[in-house]
């Protein structure tokens, strides 16, 4: 991985030079890039909107086009299909796609470095720790990863995971718990569902998977197609430089960054609640910051995640760690 990273950075440097030249003449054509978000735009994407608004992408010669997914799996599928240049998705999904189905995607950067996906219960619930879920119903959005999370957390808490009944509740995590049709949900995000529910007057509590035996996997990573990576490394590196500037701005001026997120988009497309996003960003920032640099990926994190996924039979064979991620951060 190390060598690749250096190479990428070098090439990235060249692109930057070219762009600088282009700016002088003022006539350089921007390179188009599509990025598919993991979900609808929210605080976690502020750095992208900041980078757009502040012209960082333009300075790098990139015309960034943001798209939203219909399915949670779209970012990986469409990045793999070459339909979008980049996709934002979840680390375990990348492992699963790569290991089970040979989907040709690789992660290029880690955005959120630890799980946001927690077990959420109502404030007044009698459940005090994951083992209390025995004999209860847990709703989840149909993603097998969540089953493994529950299994790990319940058994590490001393409970019997077989006694937990899991229900695929599709899109309806929030309403299923509020209407008390299930006792807990997993797959809900502490930076979205939890503050939104609070905003609507429902207090909740949550359990962090990392506290109950789950490795601290990267919640969000950026992926691209193997081929795209080979052919457009320079563009991607340029993208990353601009994104990093956006991130730094967001970290240092979070109020302003959020303001950009809100101002930048008309209400029509962004029915975001300000309080919620503010709270969300507070939760996110520590999870995005890395000593090694924004977006850097550690081989151990991938190792741990893959091992854990092997243990819980989410995957049947180990993917090669060299294929599955590259570091574009030095």
């Amino acid at each position, binding site marked *: 991985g190390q060598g690749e990273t250096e190479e990428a950075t070098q090439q990235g440097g060249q692109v930057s030079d070219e762009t600088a030249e282009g700016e002088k003449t003022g006539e350089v054509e921007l390179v188009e890039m599509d990025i598919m978000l993991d*979900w*609808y735009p929210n605080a976690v994407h502020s750095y992208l909107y900041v980078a757009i608004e502040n012209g960082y992408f333009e300075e790098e010669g990139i015309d960034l086009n943001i*798209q*939203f*997914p*219909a*399915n949670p*799996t*779209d970012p990986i*599928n*469409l990045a793999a*299909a070459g*339909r979008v240049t980049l996709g934002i998705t979840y680390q375990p999904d990348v492992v699963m796609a790569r290991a089970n189905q040979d989907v040709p995607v690789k992660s290029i950067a880690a955005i959120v470095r630890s799980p946001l996906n927690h077990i959420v219960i109502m404030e007044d619930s009698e459940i005090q720790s994951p083992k209390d879920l025995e004999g209860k119903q847990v709703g989840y959005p149909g993603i097998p990863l969540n089953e493994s999370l529950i299994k790990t957390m319940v058994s590490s808490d001393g409970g019997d995971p077989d006694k937990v009944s899991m229900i695929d509740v599709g*899109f309806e995590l*929030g*309403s299923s718990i*509020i*209407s008390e049709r299930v006792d807990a949900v997993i797959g809900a995000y502490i930076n*979205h569902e939890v503050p*939104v*529910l609070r905003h*609507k007057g429902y207090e909740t509590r949550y359990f962090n998977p990392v506290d109950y035996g789950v490795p601290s996997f990267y919640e969000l990573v950026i992926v691209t197609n193997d081929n795209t990576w080979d052919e457009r490394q320079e563009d991607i590196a340029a993208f990353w430089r601009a994104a990093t500037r956006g991130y730094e701005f967001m970290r240092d001026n979070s109020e302003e960054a959020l303001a950009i997120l809100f101002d930048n988009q*008309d*209400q*029509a*497309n962004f*029915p*975001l*609640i300000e309080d919620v996003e503010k709270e969300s960003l507070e939760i996110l920032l520590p999870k995005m910051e890395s000593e090694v640099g924004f977006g850097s990926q550690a081989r151990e994190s991938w190792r741990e995640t893959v091992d854990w996924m092997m243990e819980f039979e989410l995957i049947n064979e180990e993917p090669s760690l060299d294929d599955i991620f590259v570091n574009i951060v030095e």
Partner: protein
Amino acid sequence: MKRWNSYFAPFILIFSFFVSWQVVAMIIAMPFILPTPLQVIAKVWDLKDILFLVHLPATLMIIVTGLALSIILGVGLAVWMNLSKTAEKAFYPILVSSQTIPIIALAPIFVLWFGYSIWSKVAVTLLITFFPITVSTFDGLRSSSKELKELLLTMGASKRDIFFKLNVPTALPYFYSGLKVAVTLSVIGAAIGEWLGAQSGLGYFSRRMMTQFDGAGVFAPIVLLSAVGISLFLAVVVLEKITLKWRKSE
């Protein structure tokens, strides 16, 4: 008494539907799941600018394009199947299976082919609406009177004559039956299509509001969708009345 029945009573019934909705919603008291009609109306008013100027036109565009294609393709296929037993036997199974595939499974394929252009949404609308049109039209074409067909034949009518002068008028009532189902489905087709990736449209907006647990915001665009659906439906009813004038004198 009769006047009362035919104008007032339905009004009362529909009104009482809204009242019971209001009451049930107030009892449940979970506005993010089931908002009251008053909340929904207030929301429509709040958001009227973006709903009417941005999202409604975007969705209408999809609906109209999708329906137009659907009528052309559906009727075309029905006619082809009516003319050729082979076409019927070959297409019917494919046609039927096309309806049994959850669109969400096809979504990535549509996006792969059409990208995030309007065409992926139109494709969904098409897929949902053309089946009722095809089946009804086909059934209608089949049900024309054998006696009249024979009479036309003895007049030296060509296949074309029989088609236009006998089969088409016979199939019309069936076609309208199918079209009524189709225009209604077209609304939902467009909404689903918008989830495949859109930046505007009523369906998109509704789902977006769903992620914010804003019940009234979810239902406000849906109310508009319903209004579009009902208007299209009524348009078909009116068209039916005009073109099937002979029926009323029967």
